[in-house]
């Protein structure tokens, strides 16, 4: 199994008063509450945590894109990846992902990822996302076109990486007389690995399976993770192959402490901050009309509870295993159990979440690296070896 540290770089200074005053930590949450002086220290701190992940044996570090929110302070994940490129030398740097439908010219993403891949001599994993609902408000982008634009941008970017330029590209949303990006990615067989983070829509699962990309499940109860990985494996069989562990990833907050009780006590408030204080938004901000299909919209309207739109307590998140929190032994056992059941080969631990202070983040990382990772390394390795070459090339 491969271990990644997935950092959101949350803004940790949202107070209870702000939470009560504003109906969202996104889109309309006034940016006067961002203090650049604190931001200077925070970026340095967060980057140092990712740098430290390499030192203690993580296989990769992950950054992602969100806009106009206290939830995460990385509107451009490629800039953070560039910073990490010079602060690390071995780890994979996974950009999870660029929100490609939000770009007026997605070729810019093909260029930036290629630059990063050259800068790091091939350490880049390129994630693509649609961007979540509030981003369509923040960017004033028609949410009804999100999916079509995603597919088209993906098509353009992968062609730009793999086909000899210059060539013309005339599609529905992007029309380019010359596609001829310099530089080209180092990983050229056929291109940097593509990972797709998702909440588990049927259409995305099917598409990732068809493309033989890596599917990442984010923010889900264990029952949903089970459902989604089962669907993904079925989808790969439909396309005539068996999903390799490398093709499946699970991203979730993980916290390890000396005992189960201590872990829960130390993580509780910071987990609740992540899932509530900085995730808070009205339903229509989260799901702008047309972002989901008609059928999915009906489902969302029927379900009364969800991340962002209703309060999720630590106890509920813990019980439903949106998070794994406990002693090293507990965390080991849980991950082992689920790896054996689901077969994923990439674990993307959010070792920092919400307001978790630096010293607890480091303690968490140290305990995880020394008392969890070594015991789980070999999980799924047999099947991984068989497919390693093939999977790395997808």
């Amino acid at each position, binding site marked *: 199994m491969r271990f990644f540290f997935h950092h959101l770089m949350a803004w940790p200074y949202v107070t209870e008063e702000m939470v009560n005053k504003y109906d969202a930590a996104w*889109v*309309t949450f006034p940016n006067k509450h961002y203090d650049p002086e604190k931001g200077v220290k925070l970026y340095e701190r967060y980057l140092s945590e990712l740098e430290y992940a390499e030192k203690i044996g993580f296989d990769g570090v992950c950054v992602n894109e969100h806009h106009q929110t206290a939830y995460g302070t990385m509107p451009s994940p490629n800039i953070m990846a560039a910073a990490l490129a010079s602060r690390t030398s071995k780890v994979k740097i996974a950009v999870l992902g660029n929100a490609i439908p939000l770009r007026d010219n997605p070729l810019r993403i093909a260029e930036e990822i290629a630059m990063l891949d050259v800068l790091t001599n091939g350490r880049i994993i390129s994630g693509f996302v649609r961007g979540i609902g509030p981003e*369509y*408000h923040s960017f*004033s*982008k*028609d*949410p*009804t*076109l999100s999916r079509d634009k995603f597919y088209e941008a993906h098509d353009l970017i992968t062609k730009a990486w793999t086909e000899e330029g210059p060539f013309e590209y005339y599609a529905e949303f992007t029309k380019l007389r010359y596609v001829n990006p310099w530089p080209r990615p180092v990983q050229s067989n056929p291109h940097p690995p593509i990972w797709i983070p998702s909440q588990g829509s049927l259409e995305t699962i099917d598409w990732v399976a068809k493309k033989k990309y890596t599917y990442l499940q984010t923010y889900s109860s264990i029952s949903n993770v089970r459902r989604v990985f089962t669907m993904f494996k079925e989808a790969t069989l439909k396309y005539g192959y068996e999903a390799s562990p490398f093709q499946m990833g699970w991203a979730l907050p993980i916290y390890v402490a000396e005992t189960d009780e201590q872990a829960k006590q130390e993580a509780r408030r910071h987990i609740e901050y992540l899932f509530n204080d900085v995730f808070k938004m*009205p*339903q*229509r*901000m989260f799901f*702008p*009309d*047309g972002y989901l299909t*008609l059928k999915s*919209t*009906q489902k969302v*309207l029927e379900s009364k509870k969800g991340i962002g739109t209703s309060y999720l307590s630590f106890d509920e998140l813990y019980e439903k295993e949106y998070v794994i929190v406990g002693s090293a032994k507990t965390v080991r056992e849980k991950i082992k159990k689920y790896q054996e059941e689901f077969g994923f080969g990439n674990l993307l631990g959010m070792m920092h979440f919400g307001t978790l202070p630096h010293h607890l983040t480091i303690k968490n990382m140290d305990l995880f690296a020394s008392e969890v990772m070594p015991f789980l390394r070999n999980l799924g390795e047999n099947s991984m070896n068989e497919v390693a070459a093939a999977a790395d090339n997808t």
Partner: protein
Amino acid sequence: MTTTSKHLLEYVSIQGTKVRLMQGGTGEPLIYLHGAAGGGNWLPCLDLLSKHFQVYAPEHPGYGKSENCTKIQSMTDLAYFYLDLMDDLSIDSATFVGSSLGGWLALEIAIIAPHRVSKLILLDSAGIRVEGVEVVDQFIMDPNDVLELLFYDKSIPEKLRSLGSSDPEAVEMNIRNRIMTSHLAWNPYFHNPKIRERIHRVKIPVLIVWGEKDEIFPVEYGHEFLNLLPNAKLTVIKDCGHLPAQEKVNEFYNEAISFLQGGE
């Protein structure tokens, strides 16, 4: 074609897209273009207008029970669709009444093909942006809160909510209406910046009707349309919100008839 007491309902296929079309009355053609909330009902105001006109009330593609048309990516595309609809129904020219988003659509049609529009009534119309006048963001608000803003008389939304159907078909149509409105009006928000440079083409008589207390597009928008249109008059209806043809049916009707039957 099925017949109800006061109007006919049929589905017509326009360039391969099937749209639901209500019709009533006889006389010169009058086309009513509904707003963002959809146009599934034969409104009392249409019933009144059908005493004098042959009233057509289509549901725009993507709304209610009309099919989607993937070719329609903008309000201008929708305007061309309606020119095709007029051709297919053999309507050379018609009076247009457009409410809100439907007003914007009527303007686009009148700009492209002024000769196809004989007279125009704009009801609290979208279509332009007025610098410095704040408008709410309907897309980010809870639909219940939007409903609340539509009427000056706040007992109306309450009544509508209590009548609100939990019928899955109605829920589905409601979602379809919202999705199509997103597609047409998300960005730029409920307007086409080109309208300001093209609106001079609309030289026909225009009656602008505005609810004095419109909380969706404030009455300043009505005044701006009056400034921009070369041959328009503005009627502001007191104690009325965004939907004068629904909230003040008789006042709207009297203004409309006097304008449409006047000698201009």
